[in-house]
C-alpha cells in the first residue's frame, strides 16, 4: 500500500491506521509513528518505501536473529513446554515442531499433559501416530504434573533428544490453573535440572490486546522464552507481538501458517512488515 507514494501527513495517518488495524495497539503504534514523524520532519524519510525500510530496520533490531533460535540443551533431553490460552493452536503447533525436529534427525517424545479437555489426549496421540513418535499420557482427569513427571522420566530412560509437553488451554485470569502451570514447570525442573529449556507461549494472531496480558501473566507464572504465533495464514497480522516485545522482551520464534505439520516457518521480521503493508 505504500510503494510509489510520496510521504506526507495523510500517508502517515494511513500508516498509523494500518498499524492499529494490525493489532499493534495504540501505545506501540504511537512509538513507531513518533519515530517516523521525526525522520520525516528531518527529511530522511521521503517516500512510502522508505517507511517500509524504516519499519523493517526497527523490527529486525527488536528481534535479532540469535534471539529467535530454539534453546537446545547440551545434554539430552531438551524439554520444550507449550503453553497458552484456549484454542490458540498449542497441540497443532506441537505436531509442526515435532515434524521439523524429526526431519532434522532428532528423536522426539510427546507428553500429553492436557488431562482435562474432551478428546485432547486422543488428538495428540493421532499426531504421534502420523508422525511416528511416542506419546506419554496419564489418567483422564488426573494431575497434569504427574504426567509431566512420567514424560520426563520416560524421556531420560528412552534417551530421546527432545521432549515436547502439551498443556491444557488456560486463561491467565484462572489463578488455580496458572498455579498448576507453575507446578508443572517445577516438576519438570526437578526431574531434569534446567528444564524446560524452552517455554513457548502460543498466541493466536487473531487475538487483540489481551495477548499482551497473556504474555505478561504467562511469563510471570512460567518464564516464557519464546512465542509461537499461529494462524498467520488468515487475514490477522499479529501486530501485538510488537507491544509484547516492548513490554516483556520476549521474541517470536515460529509462526503457524496452516493446519498441517508442514505449516510452520521461523519468524522473519522483514516478511512480517511486508505482510502488514501488503
Amino acid at each position, binding site marked *: 500500500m505504500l510503494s510509489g507514494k510520496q510521504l506526507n501527513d495523510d500517508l502517515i495517518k494511513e500508516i498509523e*491506521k494500518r498499524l*492499529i*488495524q*494490525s*493489532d499493534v*495497539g*495504540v501505545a506501540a503504534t504511537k512509538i513507531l509513528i513518533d519515530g517516523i514523524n521525526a525522520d520525516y520532519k528531518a527529511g530522511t524519510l521521503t517516500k512510502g518505501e522508505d517507511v517500509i525500510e524504516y519499519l523493517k530496520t526497527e523490527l529486525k533490531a527488536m528481534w535479532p536473529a540469535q534471539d529467535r533460535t530454539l534453546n537446545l540443551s547440551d545434554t539430552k533431553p531438551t524439554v520444550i513446554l507449550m503453553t497458552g*490460552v*484456549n*484454542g*490458540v*493452536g498449542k497441540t497443532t503447533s506441537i505436531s509442526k515442531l515435532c515434524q521439523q525436529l524429526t526431519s532434522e534427525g532428532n528423536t522426539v517424545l510427546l507428553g500429553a499433559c492436557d488431562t*482435562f*479437555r*474432551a*478428546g*485432547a489426549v*486422543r*488428538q495428540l*496421540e*493421532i*499426531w504421534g501416530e*502420523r508422525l511416528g513418535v511416542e506419546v506419554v499420557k496419564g489418567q483422564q482427569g488426573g494431575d497434569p504434573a504427574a504426567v509431566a513427571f512420567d514424560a520426563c522420566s520416560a524421556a531420560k530412560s528412552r534417551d530421546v533428544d527432545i521432549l515436547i509437553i502439551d498443556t491444557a488451554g488456560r*486463561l*491467565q*485470569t484462572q489463578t488455580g490453573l496458572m498455579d498448576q502451570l507453575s507446578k508443572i514447570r517445577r516438576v519438570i525442573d526437578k526431574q531434569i535440572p534446567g528444564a524446560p529449556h524452552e517455554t513457548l507461549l502460543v498466541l*493466536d*494472531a*487473531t*487475538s*487483540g*490486546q*489481551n*495477548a499482551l*496480558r497473556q504474555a505478561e501473566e504467562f511469563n510471570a507464572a512460567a518464564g516464557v522464552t519464546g512465542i509461537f504465533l499461529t*494462524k498467520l*495464514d*488468515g*487475514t*490477522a*497480522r499479529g501486530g*501485538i507481538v510488537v507491544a509484547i516485545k516492548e513490554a516483556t522482551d520476549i521474541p517470536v520464534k515460529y509462526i503457524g501458517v496452516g*493446519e*498441517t505439520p508442514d505449516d510452520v516457518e521461523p519468524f522473519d521480521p522483514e516478511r512480517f512488515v511486508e505482510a502488514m503493508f501488503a
Partner: protein
Amino acid sequence: RVSDGFNNVFRKLSGSDAISESNVREAMDEVRTALLEADVHYEVAEEFCKNIMSDAAGQQVTKAVKPGQEMISIVHRRLIELFGGDPDAEQQPTPAGIMKLAPGPTIIMMCGLQGSGKTTTCGKLAGMLKKQGRSVMLCAADLQRPAAVEQLETVANQANDDLPGGSQVHFYGEHDKSAEYGKAVGVAVKVCQNAVKAAKKQGVDVLILDTAGRLHVNDELMGELKSVRSLVNPHHIFLVVDAMTGQDAVNSAKSFHEKLEVDGVILTKFDSDTRGGAALSVKAVTGAPIRYIGVGEHLDAIEVFHPERMAGRILG
C-alpha cells in the same frame, strides 16, 4: 470491560457543570482511544464517535444543565442500540430463543474460525435446551481435525449424563469418514444430510451441526459451508467468535456473513479479562444479533446475551 478508559473520560465529564465544543471533541478523542484499546475495530470506533458527536450537537449538550451526564447518557444509549437493544424500553424484550418447529428438527449450523469454541458451545447449547425439556442431537461434521468426532461425542455424553433436564442429548457421527487435512472436503455435507435423516427418525427437537473451523479466505471450505446451507437448510446459522479477537473480527465476521447470512453470533471465552471490543465490531459490521456468550469451559457456562447489560458492563 471497555471501562477503564471510559471511567477517566466520564469522571472528568460528570464532574463538570459546563462543557464547551472543544471539551466534547477532546472527550470523544479519549473515547475513541478507549475503544481502540478495547479491540473495537478502527472504522467502527470512528463511526461510533462520529454518531456521538452529532447526537451531542443535536441535543445541544453544551447548553445542558448537567452536560457531563448528558454525554454519558448519549454514549450509553448508542451502545444499547448498537447491541440491538431499545434504550427507551422500560424492560428489554425477551431475547429470541431457538426456533420451535413441528415437525422438527430445528437445525442449527455452527461456524467460525479455528479454535473459536464451536465444539464446546454445541455442548452448552445442548445443555441449555435439555434444561428447557427439548431433545437435542449433536452432529460431528468436522471430519478433518484429529479426534474432533470423539471430542463432540464426549461432549454429547457429558451433556446427556451430567446436566439437568428430562430430555436426551443424542450424538451422530461417522468415525470412519474422518480424514487428513484437505482429504475430506465435502464429506461433511453428506454427514450433515445423514444426521438430518437420523434426527427425523428419532423425533429429535433440535439438531446442531458442529463444523470444522476454517478461514473466511479459504474458498473451498467456505464453499463446503454454502453447500451444507443449501442442501440442509438450517433454521439458524450461528457464527462463533472468540471474545478476545482483535481488529480481524470485522474481516472474518463480514466474510462469513456475506457468504452465509449469519442469523446469530455467539461470543466465547468472555470469562477472560479481554475488553471485548470484538462484540461491538461484529455487531456493527454484520447486524446479526449476539445471541449467547460463553463464560467458561464447562458445559453450563453459557448465558443469554443482554444488550443493556453489555452496555452497562462496557461503561463500568
